[in-house]
């Protein structure tokens, strides 16, 4: 089943130099395992291919039902050097939420995920 990340998570992003971070938080506790299983580093790196110039790091925070992603080379140099509208990476959060996950039907039904 195809599931929009926007329907199962909320997010906030910020900057550190030329790196943007995006914290993704499950909207319901029972949806965190779905994020942990399917929102992989590779999946996110693939999503941002051509948008960022560096690699992606991923950290798990089961206590907050959240994942934290570091997107390197995301801010066109970062800070005051960047010419981008979003020089501080404030809206990378919703750019990540555009991602659509493929979740096996049984798993999606068991977790009560909303279909895309």
């Amino acid at each position, binding site marked *: 089943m195809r599931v929009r990340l926007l329907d199962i998570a909320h*997010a*906030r992003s*910020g900057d550190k130099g030329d790196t943007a*971070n995006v914290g993704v938080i499950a909207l319901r506790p029972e949806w965190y395992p779905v994020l942990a299983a399917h929102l992989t580093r590779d999946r996110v790196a693939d999503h941002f291919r051509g948008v960022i110039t560096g690699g992606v790091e991923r950290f798990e925070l089961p206590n907050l039902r*959240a994942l934290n992603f570091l997107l390197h080379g995301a801010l066109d140099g970062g800070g*005051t050097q960047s010419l981008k509208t979003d020089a501080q990476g404030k*809206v990378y*959060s919703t*750019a990540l939420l555009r991602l659509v996950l493929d979740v096996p039907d049984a798993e999606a039904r068991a977790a009560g995920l909303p279909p895309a």
Partner: protein
Amino acid sequence: MSRIVRVASGQGFWGDWLEAPRRQVEGGPVDYLMLDYLAEVTMSILQKQKERDPAMGYARDFIGAVESVLPAVVERGVRVIANAGGVNPPACAAAVRAVAAKAGAADRVKIGVITGDDLLPRLDALIAGGHALANMDTGEPLSAVRDRVLSANAYIGSVPIVEALKRGANIVVTGRSTDTALTMAPLRYEFGWGDTDWNRLAAGIIAGHIIECGAQCSGGNCLYHWRDVPDLGNVGYPIVEGHEDGTFFVTKHPNTGGWINVPSVSEQLVYEMGDPSSYITPDVVADFSSIRLEPAGENRVRVFGIEGRAPTDKLKVSIAYRDGYKAVGSLVYAWPDALDKARLADRVLRQRLDRLGLRFDQILTEFVGADATHGRLAGDAGRDAPEVQLRVGVRGHDRAMVERFTREIVPLVLNGPPSVTGFAAGRPKVEEIVAYWPALVDKTVVQTAVEIL
């Protein structure tokens, strides 16, 4: 029931809501008012101001904030802690003193001034002494840009703030303190937490992280069910209610807008997060993967279980240096085919820049309304947009070339593609780029000093 210490956040950055400090001290009981003014490049802006006038170099907004909360400070004993001192804490303190004197309260204000974070006057001696101050991202030694450095400040921790409170200060002014120390220090002072009380110190740091951006944990910029956030016009800024064991509650005053719940606090916890298991501060390394959150009533979240460990023997140093010039110009193209018109205008502009022989380190074109914030991820949503803003920026080290670029935008209104407007602001402004250079320095190099005025 254990004793409670209330730390209220009244400012999340320089430029935040001017009403917030006063609303925090008048809306209900608070013991401390914490005001955070400094971001990465703020110090360099303040350094430029100090070069023009030696009595400047601090966050001027703070003086108005002090004026607005002075009755609470002198009559109810609320103590204020702020990193408003920027690159000139003594001048900031003098301005605070003047405001207190004007209000006839000079004898009831004791100002604690914390210095020692400013490494600019010592930079050459440090480099000569073998401190490379290498860029944490690139590894390059600071000597590469030494002649262009504008400011250099070590991030300092809670220790000097605690000392100022012990010595009776009711307004504490620091330079480049960490944002989180401004909240942790009063909790550490009130509860007498020890130097190696890692878990409690880490709890204080995480309390600081949650409220250091003001309303960003109480409904501001909150994506979670954003339509349902109540009464943002009357938003309440956050308050930490600290307990001796390191447990704390995040809440806000009654009869204020916004909301505080587990999702709103979670969003702030992940803001600007790196490796969550190692949030490094001068006082302690906090582990964000240990944090427990639970609802504790209306607009109330309990935070507990936090673990920390010993800090490193380094301090982070925030260095700013001049790095060329930039300018950004924009025009608005209207339906039909707004995006195509804007794209054509961009090609025309680039052709002209090229013919003029202008060379830049970078030219960036964005189409606001189509792809500016999400790039190709936005798909073709901009295709039939009612309007699209063409936004072109250039960056380079030759000021004259950047200046020349600014003259090429407005002519497009009459000699480029049609249906164009939005040029009322005229020619774009050339800005000097002040870039950020993060580095580390041995802790032993930085000695802070506390003075009570």
